[in-house]
């Protein structure tokens, strides 16, 4: 229930923030969000804020600087736009990080069994496939005393992808047989 409410609240908040354009209101919402996180999570809120800032910094600084230079050369005001863009994007990134830290996605979708099964299997398979690809990358690093050439990096990336594609076929069939053996499809019939 808690996770479903969190997911719903996040979705509503993300859409609603798109309709707020006054920088003062956006700053107030950001202060409110940070205040709530400080109360609920303690000092972790600051590290979340730093991570959110780092995540949006490159795109926001580039767009803001480009717009400020353009507006300055055109003799137009730029402060309202830059404040609005940065406050909104930072607030959205902060809310997204807060959600990812606090939500259990499987519990959030437990009202819909098909989606829950899908999410459970996807998360497990992401871990399994991700670990396999990480091992491939580490193997390349361990057998390369110097930086690998473009050709070698290409071959390594191609090998990672083809192994992942091959495994996909087998895993889908194995999962299907496992679910059938445990009566998953009978329960749903």
């Amino acid at each position, binding site marked *: 229930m808690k996770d479903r409410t969190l*997911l719903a609240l996040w*979705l509503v908040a*993300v859409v609603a*923030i*798109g*309709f707020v*354009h006054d920088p003062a209101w956006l700053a107030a919402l950001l202060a409110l969000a940070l205040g709530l996180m400080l109360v609920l999570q303690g000092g972790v809120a600051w590290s979340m804020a730093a991570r*959110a800032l780092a*995540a*949006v910094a490159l795109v926001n600084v580039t*767009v803001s600087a480009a*717009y400020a230079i353009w507006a300055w050369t055109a003799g*137009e*005001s730029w402060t*309202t736009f830059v404040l*609005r*863009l940065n406050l*909104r*994007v930072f607030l*959205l*990134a902060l809310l*997204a*990080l807060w*959600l*990812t830290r606090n*939500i259990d*996605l499987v519990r959030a979708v437990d009202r819909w069994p*098909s989606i829950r*099964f*899908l999410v459970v*299997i*996807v998360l497990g*398979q*992401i871990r*399994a*496939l*991700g670990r396999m*690809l990480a091992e491939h990358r580490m193997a390349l690093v361990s057998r390369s005393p110097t*930086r690998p050439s*473009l050709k070698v*990096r*290409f071959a390594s*990336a*191609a*090998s*990672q*992808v*083809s192994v*992942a*594609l*091959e495994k*996909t*076929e087998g*895993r*889908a069939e194995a*999962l*299907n047989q496992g*679910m*059938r053996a445990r009566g998953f*499809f009978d329960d749903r019939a």
Partner: protein
Amino acid sequence: MHIPDGMIAPQAFIVAGLIAVPFWVHAVRRVARDLDERLIPRMAVLTALAFVLSTVMVPLPGGTSAHLTGVGLLVLAFGLWPAFLAFSLVLALQAALLGAGGITALPVNALAMGLVGGAVVSGAHRLAGRKKSFWSVLVPVWLGVVVAAVLLALVLGLQPWLASDAAGQPLFFPFGPRVTLPVIVLPHLAIGVAEGMLSWFVVSALEARRMPA
């Protein structure tokens, strides 16, 4: 390539959502019809595959690299509709699990990269006679990447026209298509070649092991 939250106006993401829903419904029906009870395990593994493909780096000259989108490969290996569904699920998971990309921008990203980009790959590959030769893999994948980049650049470029305040200042992304098209599309001309070459490497490797792709 995909657009993050906060850069596009509600008018754009709500309309994109309304356009995307019937395509998602159609994709679920098509995939369910073809896969029947195998739908859930098959889609789950495909989604996981699409997720990990996005973590594979495509090497670029000069020691740099870019993330693989994987849409072209997924379309070549599994067809348009499963690829579109898996890619859409990946965007949702990236937003909800990693805080990456954006949930409001999801319909725009899914339509541009998953549906239109995927359809271009599928159509061009069909025109090339579904061959597994270098050019008949590279050109469709390259076209898919470039067309998706053009679409995303146009959507971003439309934002100042869609939403600005009384003083004429933009409410969301501030630059028009004259800026977004070259800034987004030009790098993707090279990224598309790299992704197309990588796709051909993979298709050739799978062909050599006699796995259909």
